[in-house]
């Protein structure tokens, strides 16, 4: 960060005055609630949150023995495959096929590929619930039309298929973002790297792994952080497609927090889950940034 210059005769506190309004509202509605969530995870609450009793780590002990929590957290980890791994691999694959030369009219494709990023996840959920509808959804109609009628499923209502079905919606939302990110990054890799390695006899395959992927390190870090965090905090999509069902087959941590703390008034327990989720998200973003982004322009 640049050292702010300080003009003669000016108060060195001047910046605080400008920062104050934003900081005040941020402290009241974000910082203090984070601390309060942490604090209330050590209490047992009753009487709709009006009285509380210190229980130490009890909520956390309950948490690690609660099959719902284990299920929810495992589902979040499985969602990482759909939110993060599949879109990033697709993005790299597409980037390698398209290469690093400008394609006339690419901005049109970019506009469309990015579109799912700007649409409310509830809208996405509503549209895909129709796509997956067992009786008149296009996916089952399509399977029947191409003679694969025996593969029809009650996708979102099936214990076996609900999780991959919701997950594939997430891949649909994220892959365009990864593609655009990587293609933009490839334009920045210096042409000489490819020329020099080409003269040395490197194949396109080698160039991809030895020049393109390392050159995209910063973009891959960004894609990993954004998509993994999205997988860990997923709520809207699950709420609008399955509400965690059938049974608990698509239950995720975000939905469990809502169910325990808001619907069932288990405040301390919900707060413990929220604390764990927040810590996991903060450490994941910190770790990925630490490992992958050593380039100054990115940090």
């Amino acid at each position, binding site marked *: *960060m*640049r050292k*702010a*210059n300080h003009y003669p005769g*000016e*108060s*060195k506190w*001047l910046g605080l*005055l*400008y*920062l104050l309004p*934003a*900081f005040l*509202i*941020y402290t009241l*509605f*974000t*910082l203090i*609630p*984070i601390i309060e*969530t942490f604090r*209330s995870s050590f209490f047992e609450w009753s009487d709709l*949150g009006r009285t509380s009793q210190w229980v130490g780590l009890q909520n956390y002990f309950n948490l690690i023995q609660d099959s719902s929590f284990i299920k929810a957290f495992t589902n979040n980890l499985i969602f990482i495959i759909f939110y993060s791994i599949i879109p990033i691999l697709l993005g790299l694959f*597409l980037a390698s*096929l*398209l*290469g690093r*030369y400008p*394609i006339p009219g690419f901005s049109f*494709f970019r506009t*469309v590929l*990015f579109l799912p*990023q*700007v649409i*409310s*996840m*509830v*809208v996405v959920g*509503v*549209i*895909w619930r*129709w*796509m997956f*509808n067992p009786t*008149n959804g*296009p996916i089952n109609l399509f399977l029947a039309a191409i003679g694969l009628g025996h593969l029809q499923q009650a996708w979102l209502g099936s214990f076996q298929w609900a999780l991959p079905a919701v997950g594939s919606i997430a891949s*649909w939302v994220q892959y365009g973002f990864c593609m655009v*990110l990587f293609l933009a990054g490839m334009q920045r890799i210096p042409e000489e790297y490819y020329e020099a390695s080409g003269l040395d006899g490197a194949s396109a395959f080698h160039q991809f792994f030895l020049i393109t992927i390392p050159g995209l390190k910063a973009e891959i870090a960004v894609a990993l*952080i*954004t998509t993994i965090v999205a997988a860990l*905090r997923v*709520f809207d999509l699950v709420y609008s497609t399955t509400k965690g069902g059938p049974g608990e087959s698509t239950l995720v941590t975000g939905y469990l927090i*809502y169910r325990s*703390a*808001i619907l069932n008034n288990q*405040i301390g327990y919900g707060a413990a889950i*929220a604390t764990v*989720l*927040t810590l996991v998200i*903060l450490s994941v973003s910190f770790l990925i940034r630490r490992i992958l982004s050593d380039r100054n322009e990115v940090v």
Partner: protein
Amino acid sequence: MKLRWNKLIPRYLILTIFMLIVCIPLWGALMSAFKSNSELLSSPFSLPQTWTLENFKEAWTVGRFSQFFKNSVFVTTVVVIVSVFLSILSGYAFGQLPLPGKKLLFPLMLIGYMVPFEAVIIPLYHWMGALGLRNTYWALILPQIGLSVSFGTLWMSSFFENAPQELVDAATIDGATRWQTLWGILFPLSRPATTTLIVLIFMWTWNEFLLALVMVQSESMRTLPVGLAFFQGRFSSNIPLMAAGAIIVALPTILIYILFQRFFIRGMLGGAIKG
């Protein structure tokens, strides 16, 4: 180097396939919204034989989307104006002004950008209840501003850090105060950065779901995404009606996205990098 046609055509083919995967569900929803329920069943993706606006009318009146639309517009407008204004001030503080404790305050502001609403929703829910503010615009607006200024401050501070210092120095020598330099010299230069911030905060606020779901119990206070979620519970078998509702929710963000896509994409790629 320019690509020849024989190399371009396979590339267009690949792009078209991935583009179609994005488009097909959206196209299907768009077409359904203009059809009757019986026509939809025969061919989901075809153009409607008779275009009808009935679904939109029904969602708008019976589904009360007119009310949800008003709520969303009001909440989003207030959040965007206040958050952007406060972020310009605080970003200026970090990027240009003498600020004691900067090294401590900056990472503190960063936390808000990285935590999800799940981290703050439980206490906010109870406090808003205790203050009698649930089911009011306050409960939707204040926490959203609190979270938005976190990103806004980071975003604007990087603009102000890189602002041309000669202009600032020249203005100061001419006797401009810091306030005058901000609004007279730097703010006009910040238009691309500010526009990006406006469209991002607009989109996040318009699409916010968990906060609005938790804070609002009365139907008349719902925002569009929450309204749509409950609508789905009631009318899930009437697909054209659901599709019309979904389009009402999505259309404003899609329009703003198409108008300002340069800013959107830069913000989402750059914003992700900043985070």
